[in-house]
């Protein structure tokens, strides 16, 4: 191992841990995730272009990934397909969801390194853990760079203009501040969202607890990004980060992103948690596919932001 790549060992697995099981089940989870996300996207919007084909082929490849002996070949095809989905969206000038990029990156790592070979699997785990740590660190750093968290401006805006975020945060915001800012709200095409008028604001509230919470968000994210690479701290930090993802999802309701993040964080745990929670994830995706608001509409659905 040379100096140029030695730093990857910071993300080495703990001896005696169930990391091989986690990797093998995470590969299955990626097929499940890609298939469900692509099917949801296809059901939500038929574009009449290359994206439709990419979505449907992704579903077929996801099914193939579950056939014993085909996983490694399927993962290479899946990488090409998800990369194709991303490039097509760029070409069509559509928005590109960050979680699809993460999905492509992880499929790429799986295509490059087999989870079935000990040495390659170790390298695979290192790559994935580093990527998750980088993700967490930058989500915090970007909040610092943009500067809308120091006085809770962004979270105030979200609490006032989104019913989901209001549910999470309104108890921390004085009623008079809430009423003052909600008075600026106008209609929005998205249900549960509001468009404030030009001149609305200032989106600052008199609540030290709320301001502290907003500042703790980026402190936690940057700290978690660093500590996820610390051998002794990583399990505990991963658990805290999973709780953090749940808190975010209470407001954001981007469930496919939330399920992906939780599974990524499970890669930092010593136990075989990806396998243990796989049935729960499968049921969650099945529910999204059968439910209202993006799925077949057979089951009642609480509101969430589709993939």
């Amino acid at each position, binding site marked *: 191992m040379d100096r140029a790549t030695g730093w990857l060992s910071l993300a080495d697995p703990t001896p005696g841990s169930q990391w091989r099981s986690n990797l093998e089940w995470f590969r299955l989870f990626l097929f499940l995730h890609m298939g469900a996300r692509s099917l949801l996207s296809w059901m939500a919007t038929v574009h009449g272009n290359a994206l439709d084909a990419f979505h449907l082929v992704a579903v077929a490849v996801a099914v193939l990934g579950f056939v014993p002996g085909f996983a490694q070949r399927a993962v290479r095809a899946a990488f090409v397909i998800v990369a194709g989905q991303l490039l097509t969206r760029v070409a069509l000038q559509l928005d590109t969801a960050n979680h699809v990029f993460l999905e492509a990156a992880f499929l790429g790592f799986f295509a490059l390194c087999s989870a079935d070979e000990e040495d390659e699997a170790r390298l695979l785990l290192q790559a994935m853990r*580093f*990527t998750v740590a980088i993700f967490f660190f930058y989500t915090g750093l*970007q909040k610092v760079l*943009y500067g809308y968290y120091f006085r809770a401006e962004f979270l105030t805006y979200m609490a006032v203009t989104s019913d989901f975020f209001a549910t999470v945060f309104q108890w921390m915001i004085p009623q008079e501040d809430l009423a003052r800012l909600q008075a600026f709200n106008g209609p929005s095409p998205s249900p549960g969202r509001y468009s404030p008028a030009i001149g609305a604001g200032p989106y600052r509230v008199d609540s030290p607890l709320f301001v502290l919470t907003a500042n703790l968000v980026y402190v936690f994210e940057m700290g978690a990004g660093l500590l996820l690479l610390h051998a002794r701290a990583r399990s505990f930090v991963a658990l805290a980060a999973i709780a953090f993802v749940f808190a975010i999802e209470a407001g954001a309701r981007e469930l496919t992103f939330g399920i992906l993040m939780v599974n990524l964080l499970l890669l930092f745990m010593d136990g075989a948690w990806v396998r243990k929670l796989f049935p729960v994830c499968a049921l969650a995706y099945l529910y999204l596919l059968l439910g209202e608001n993006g799925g077949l509409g057979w089951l009642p659905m609480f509101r969430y932001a589709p993939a």
Partner: protein
Amino acid sequence: MTLETRRKVVATVVAVLAIWPACHFAVVRAYDLNPWNWFGWAMYTLPAQRVEAFAYSPDGKPVSPASMSRDAYQRIQIAYHRWSRRMIEVDWRGPPLEFAREILSAYPSWPEVKIRAHRIGMDRESATMMIQATETYRLSREDVGLESSSSQVGS
């Protein structure tokens, strides 16, 4: 591929993933892109921007749903939605060709359409919603690939 080569490839990819978000901040600012996207992990950093646009005839008459068929108005709305998304995501200054074409199709007597677009977002200092940029377009029927209007024929 040997394990050592794989290790080098993985290390390079991880390094790129670590460097890109730092560049993302500068690239987004330079090209007016949406910071929520483009893999810089800057989602939920600032309120999402939105576009408000106003379209007029050359003599200042606004587009009105009452003066056209429901289908025509829906086509205008779809074209507006696509254009405003594109403006926010990738191309703030890109001309609204499809939007203008649908408007001019709905108003055959207009030789051109004037569109003024505001990008609205939160000002960091004042924490208020402000117009952050304005673009104005004058697009003729020829510009959007339509034949000259009836009022212009022979003039």
